[in-house]
């Protein structure tokens, strides 16, 4: 029973570290791509379509549309753009026949849409990056679990010092909140990338088992060994796919589980 708890703790700590890596990677990509402004632009276009009945392209091709409307810099534009007074004026500039009524209520719906779409995109981005990291790195949770369960020394290392390290790192990252509409400086981006590289190297040094086996699988590829080879690749593929989905769930989830499991550890339980 104790070995099972220790294995679970170690496994959760590894998943938490991977989740933190995916979180940092997502943050780096998010800061480069600026998805928030993209969603905002999309919602403004929807509102323009609802009030004028014309698509954005049609409105922009209209010679009466002012030039500044064609040259709006959407980068890092925040919700402050979506106020009833400003949007009412803006839509009238695009089309004199625009039916601007109930803007206050409608804008609340559009702002909610912007935030919902942004959150959804971030979750999908984390899933894509988590899957990419685990599939290409061939990080297999099944092999990690098996190694932890069978190796007592590994289990002891990952259920105590490594779990504490992961929890500390998670706590430190949880306090760093970022505003999606704020443009990060080059220094912030550089420090994010450096932190990602450091964490990745640290992870690969600490957790070397169950990783990258598929890329050095020469033994399974010998002639006459096809069936074994297919089974091996299927096992590694499904394991990595599962790991990618699990690490994309989110660091807070793994952190909560780790805290609950850590409380069950004999040294903590006796304290």
């Amino acid at each position, binding site marked *: 029973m104790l070995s099972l708890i220790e294995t679970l703790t170690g496994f959760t700590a590894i998943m938490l570290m991977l989740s933190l890596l995916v979180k940092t990677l997502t943050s780096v990509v998010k800061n480069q791509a600026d998805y928030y402004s993209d969603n905002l632009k999309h919602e403004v276009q929807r509102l323009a379509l*609802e009030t004028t009945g014309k698509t954005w392209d049609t409105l922009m091709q209209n010679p009466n549309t002012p030039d500044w409307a064609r040259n709006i810099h959407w980068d890092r534009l925040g919700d402050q753009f979506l106020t009833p007074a400003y949007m009412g004026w803006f839509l009238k500039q695009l089309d004199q026949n625009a039916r601007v009524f109930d803007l206050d209520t409608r804008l609340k719906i559009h702002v909610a849409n912007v935030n919902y779409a942004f959150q959804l995109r971030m979750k999908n981005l984390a899933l894509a990056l988590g899957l990419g990291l685990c599939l290409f790195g061939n990080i297999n949770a099944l092999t990690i679990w098996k190694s932890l369960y069978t190796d007592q020394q590994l289990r002891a290392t990952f259920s105590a010092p490594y779990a504490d390290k992961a929890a500390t790192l998670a706590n430190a990252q949880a306090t760093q909140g970022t505003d999606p509409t704020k443009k990060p400086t080059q220094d912030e981006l550089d420090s994010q990338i450096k932190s990602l590289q450091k964490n990745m190297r640290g992870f690969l040094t600490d957790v070397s088992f169950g990783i990258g086996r598929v890329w050095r699988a020469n033994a399974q590829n010998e002639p006459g060994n096809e069936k074994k080879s297919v089974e091996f690749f299927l096992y590694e593929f499904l394991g990595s796919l599962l790991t990618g989905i699990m690490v994309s769930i989110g660091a807070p989830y793994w952190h909560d589980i780790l805290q609950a499991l850590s409380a069950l550890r004999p040294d903590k339980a006796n304290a």
Partner: protein
Amino acid sequence: MKRLKMTKLNAVILLVAALFLFVLPPFTPYIDIPKLGRIPLSGMQIFYAVLSLEIVVAVYIFGVGVLSRTQPQPISAGYPPQPGSSPAPTVQPGPTPPAQQSTPVTPQGGH
């Protein structure tokens, strides 16, 4: 019409993905990158790499990228109604809007 176009596009993407998956692995011994030389990978490894790449790209394109949302369609060709055309059937409960209000207030409500 646009929905049909999207379905066709999805079908083409699926077909190309399947083709890559089964066509690329046999060509492994002939894949040559000038700077890296011939890649010492087996067919199964290439299959694994292509399948992984396709999954990641599909999740990104359909979840984050260009196909993650559909563009809204124009409501109708004759929208908004021109002055003089037949008015939409409306019910006018409640007080009339103040005269100084510049924006037309119709009682249909929001969305």
